[in-house]
Every structure is written in structure tokens, then in C-alpha cells.
């Protein structure tokens, strides 16, 4: 059964450390994981890095992982910095 994690509110350098822990925990569950990005209101490079790391960890550890439903803040940053080459984000909701 896949585990759904919804990130909401601000996802920036200020939340980075906490977010990192949350994601570590989620990975440790070793369950397929869907991360819903639709409720993120603010998104910066620190958060983007976390997602890039998360995705790579998923592949490395063999945990099926999907980042999905990017809201406007997430889309904007990805477009601004050309991060579509580093991040694979699905459109559908979790």
C-alpha cells in the first residue's frame, strides 16, 4: 500500500532541516511513497534540493517514489532554474 505524504505550507531553508527528518522517516518505512506538493505555498532552492536528494535516495534504496501535483510555487521555481532535468514531477494528485 503506498504511503502518501503531503507537504504543505512553506517549504524553504527555514523548514529544511525539519523536512529532511520527515523525509528520512518516510524513506525508512521502505514503502512506496507519493509526495504531494500541491499545498506548498512557498518553495525555494533548499526545498528543491531536498526533493532532488529524496528522489535520488528513492532510486538508490529501491523505494518507489513519486513527486506529484506541483502547485504554482513549485512549478515556478522549476521553470525558473530549469530543474526539470533534475526533478521528475508527475501531474496527477496522490
Amino acid at each position, binding site marked *: 500500500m503506498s504511503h502518501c505524504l503531503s507537504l504543505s505550507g512553506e517549504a524553504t*531553508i527555514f523548514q*529544511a532541516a525539519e523536512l529532511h527528518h520527515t523525509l528520512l522517516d518516510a524513506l525508512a518505512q521502505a514503502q512506496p511513497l507519493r509526495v504531494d506538493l500541491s499545498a506548498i505555498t512557498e518553495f*525555494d532552492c533548499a526545498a*528543491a*534540493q531536498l526533493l532532488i536528494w529524496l528522489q*535520488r*535516495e528513492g532510486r538508490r534504496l529501491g523505494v518507489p517514489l513519486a513527486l506529484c501535483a506541483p502547485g504554482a510555487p513549485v512549478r515556478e521555481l522549476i521553470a525558473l*532554474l*530549469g530543474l526539470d532535468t533534475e526533478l521528475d514531477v508527475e501531474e496527477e494528485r496522490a
Partner: protein
Amino acid sequence: MTLDMELALQTFFEESNDLLGEMEQILLEVEAETTTPEQLNALFRAMHTIKGSAGLFALDDVVRFTHQVENALDRLRDGSLRLDEDLAGLLLRCHDHVKSLLDALAAKDTLPIAAGLPLLAELSARLDAVAPGHGDGAAGPTVASDAAAPASGQTASSWLLSLRFGPDLLRNGMDPASFIRYLHTMGRVVAIAPVTATLPAGADFNPETNYLRLELVFEGTVDAGALWDAFEFVREDSRIHICPLAEAPAQLAGLLAEAEPGEAEALLAAWLRLGLSPQAAHAPEPAAAPVTAVHDAVKTAAPPEARQPRPPESKFIKVEAGKLDKLINLIGELVIAGAAANLMARRADQTPLVEATLTISNLIEQIRAGTLSMRMIQIGEIFNRFPRVVRDVSHELGKDIQLTISGADTELDKSMVDKLGDPLMHIVRNAIDHGIEDSAQRRAAGKPDEGTIWLNAYHESGSVVIEVADDGAGLRRERILAKAIERNLVAADAALSDQDIFKLIFEPGFSTAEHVTNLSGRGVGMDVVRKSIEQLRGSVEIDSEPQLGSTFRIRLPLTLAIIDGFLVQNGDATFVVPLEAVIECIELPPAQRQDNGHDCLNLRGEILPLLHLSTFFELGAAPGKRQNVVVVRFGDSKAGLVVDELLGEYQTVIKPLGSLFRHLKAISGSTILGTGEVALILDIPSLIHYATRKESERYSLESEWGKRSRSGG
């Protein structure tokens, strides 16, 4: 892990304020004469730097407004706009608006955006009236022989930006995205490719460390300098490489060589996506874009030097005021300790030791003088505000007034400068409002239409003197006296000198103006002015001549912390006379030794009034075997203080006596001697003044007494 965002923001506010100050200075100067390219460049750079920094902090409202101003300043630079008085006025108002935006941001208030809209409209109108590049070139910069002079940037140029942000970027409160957004305001980001090869897997990943590198192609009508400026704040921790796109292929090899291990592949892939591939190194082709020799400077990674917003000031260091105060306190204690050591050496009668402690005291004195001078700043720093004030206020009142400043390099203690600003401001406003007459009256009096106000400062015998003079109508003696009598401040038949009458304007609630304009009647009365000056242990006197004008003269002590004094003994009590007031010391001839208070000495033909300290202070001690006279000066007069013993020069720290003693006359503070005893410091002007008053009261009491006894009552 703390983020230095707040600190960086603070620095931004401070530096922007400095730049705004420069901008205002130039705008006020250029009104008078013709403008130089350097001035126009400086104006442009000021606004440009503020805009750039604001962009880094994502202060979009500031960026938007300053961008428009920058456009106008750019046109000024290239000559398509001329700087006339109207434009200068508009730019001054824009300056004020930027300042108010920044102030609101600093105070975390809502931004007064609306106030800027009419300004933006005016700027637009100005800009539309003149198409870019239509200048006669007279005011524009000439050959780009210094790296700072930008090409007029009429055509777009393409650039490769290789942004290797440092690992602490995020921790320092910055984000790569804001730089890119900023670039978008300057032109177009044609293509961008992130490189995340250094992002570690597993536990090595630190969520607050930056692993992001960006390679991008940018197109815009900018020059290298503008691009460099965008990254001013990260130049130190990050490796930023900017070069014209045409030269990029030749640069890539070098960039590859500098890359992190493991990055090479990702870099090559990124560059490929940008349409670039490394070229075999050979002489760079002449750039295809119409650039000037300026761009050669960009080939190396070093940024152009001339981009300092504040040119010659690099020889100054910013020091936190608190640290300096601590240092000064310590030195004060050192002075006392040095004196104590010297005293003990003398008492032990050990000559080598006495000499050694004297050497130490000498060194301490030099350190003291040096440290105190660190706190001294030029009074020009407050004087600088006044050209603007005079301009604005005289325009508002429809008067034509010019301001002449002299002695701006006179130094005084920083703490005083801070407290002097408001009183001075009020006196100047008063001079403009009530002192200088309007043009019609001036013409009728045979004076030039244009009134003059002088600000002057100089040192005089241990004090700083600041003068505000005007060539207006002068203070109206009768009017002041009448008002004072009406307010019961003086008796109707009191005999007052002109000085005394003029000083009445410092009484609370006093204003003889027929109509109080909203300027001077702002609740900061002359009484507050006097109090502020007295708090600085200063005094203010007024000279005025009808029709000719008035001069307000403020006298302040040079320093508040340490005093060079002269010790005197009176019975058991030791007093310190400020050395700057001492003219000479002589022995009191035995023939003159009397006890009462009103005797004089013939000092080489001059009459010197004598004041017996013991009598005056009611110390009750019998006079010693020998008595001495310390001749002191106050203002233009002299007096002789009769004391028992003279103990010599003494330099020490002033210990204020505290608010309990705030009404104490004749004593300005205390100090601790080498023996540990407390000695009181005499305030000579106050002492003389008080003694004079006591004398005159005594006379009037005596004459009252005389009258009554005569009338037999």
C-alpha cells in the same frame, strides 16, 4: 545554524542610506552649477546599487521604483535628458520616496507605495518626451577609458554566466532563485541549466548546504559591470564567471579545470543544453557584439575595481560604538590607576619608580588622546543636512535664502553630534522663519533680496563654538521684553541687559511670532533647545542688531569624559578647576587677605574680582597660612579664585554626580583622585554666575535691610 539574513538586511539599509545621502548631496550641488559626468555617474550608480541589492532581498517594490529612477538617471548620463531645476526637484522627491520605502521596511511598516505613483508618472512623462540616445552628448560620458563608464548599451548582448554558488549560500540567507529573478528584470534568460553533481547521497546530504550550480545564457542591453553588480553579495563565497557568449567556448576548458571532482560530466551536459561546447584554446575572436574595450576586463574572474559605491572611504573602519565606549571607560580607569601608582611611588620616595610611573602616565595620556579622538567626528556631518533643509524651507515660505557653511571640519565628540542635530535644526528653522524677512521687506530696508544664513564652527580655549547667524531683521528687543512682562517672567521695572532680554526667548512657551507657522511651532520650543545644550554642559548666547541680523552662539566642552584639571586645596576639600579656564596662578599678597566676598586684586593694572572659595561654599574652614589666586577666564571676563594650596595639573576621569545633583550650581561633576578621595570639579561659568547673583541679591537684601532699619521697623 543561524541565518545572517537580519544582519545582511541591516547592512543593506545602512549602505543604502549612505548612497541616498550621496545622491542628495549631488542633487543639491548640481542645482547651483553645471553637472559633470562623474556626478551623473555617481547618481546612476547609487540608484543602481540600491536596486540591485533590493533585488537580492526580493524587495520588489523597491526594485520597481528604483528601476524607473535608474532609467531616468541613465538618460541623464547619456545626455538625452538635461538636469534642470525641475528634474533635480523631481529626483530629490524620488530620493525621498526611496528613503521612505526603506525606512518603512526597516520599521516593518506598510510601504507607502501610493506616494510613489505620481512620481513614477512624472518620470515616465519625462522619459517619453525624450527617446533614448538623443542626447547632444554634452552631459554624457565620453570614452570608456575607465572600466566603470558603461557603454550606452543600445544593443542587446549575450552572455554566459557560470554561477558556482558556495556551500554556505543558503545558510547566509540567500537563494540562487533570487539572482535569476533579478536577471529577468535586466533582460532575458535565454537558457538555464542547473548542475547538482555535488549533491551527496545518504547521510552526507546536509539540508542547509547549497549544492546547486547554475549555468545560463543571458541576453540584455547591459554591460559586464551591471551583471557583476548583481552578484556583489556573493562574490566572496561563490565563484562567478561572466563572459560574452561569443567568447564562452574558449572559456569552458578553464571552467572545467576548476570544477569539483565529479562535476565535469554534468557541466558538459549542461553546456550542451545551452548550445555550447568547449573549443580548443586559441586567441579569442573579436567579439561579435558591439562592445567596447570595457569587456576585456571581464575575461578574468576578477570583478572590475571601480564599482565601489563609496570610493575613498575604504580607509575607514566601522566600529561598534559600544566597543569604543568600553575602551574609553577602561582608559579612564587607567588614568586614575596611573595617578595612584605615581602617587605611591612619590610617597615611597623612590625616584626610579617615580620616573617609571611617569613614563607610564605619559603613554596613557597618548593613548587617551588617541582614543578620544576616535570618538571625534567632524561637525560637517550635521552641517550637511542643512543645505537641503534651507532649500526646502525657504521654498516653502517663498523666501530666497542661501546657506554658507564654514568650519565643517571642526571636530567634536560623537555623542554630542547626535544630540546637537535637533537644537541646531530648530535654531536654523527659526532663523529662516522669523529671522530673515521676505523679499519685499528686505528691499525696503536696502538689503539684497537673497537672505543669508551662516553656519560656522571653531575651537576656542577647550570648547567647541558653533554659530548660526543670519542677516535678517534681528531680535525685537522691545517685543520680547513686553511679552516677558506680560507672562510675568520679569518684573516690569527690572533692569536687564540686551543679552538677558534675548535669553528670555528660551523660556518655555515663549513665542513672539505674530503667527506661529507649523514650522517652528512644532512643539520643540526654544526651551527644549536650551535644555539640550545644557545637557551637553554647553551654553548658548545671542548677539543681535536690529536690521543687521542675529547670531546664536553655542559653546560646548570638547569632551564629556576626561578632564584636564588643576587641583586646588581649600581646607579639607580638594577641587578641580578645568585647565582650559586657568590663565595663571599667583600668590595672594598678605595685604589683601580678607574674609568677605567682594574684594579685588590689581593684576598688572587690571581689576580682578576675587572669589573666596571657602566663603562662597561656606566650608567653614579657617584660611590657611598662605593663600593663592587662580586666575580663570569665562567668556570674555576674568576672575580670581582664592584658595589655600595649589596642587598642580591633574588629568582624570569625570564621574558625573548623578541626577540627584542636577540642580547643583557651580559644580559640574566629580572625580576620584589617586588617593581614592573624591574631588569636585568646578564649573567656572556657573560658579561666577551664581556668585554674581548672590552678590546682587545680597546687595538688594542689604539695602532692604538698610531701608527698614532706617525707617525704624
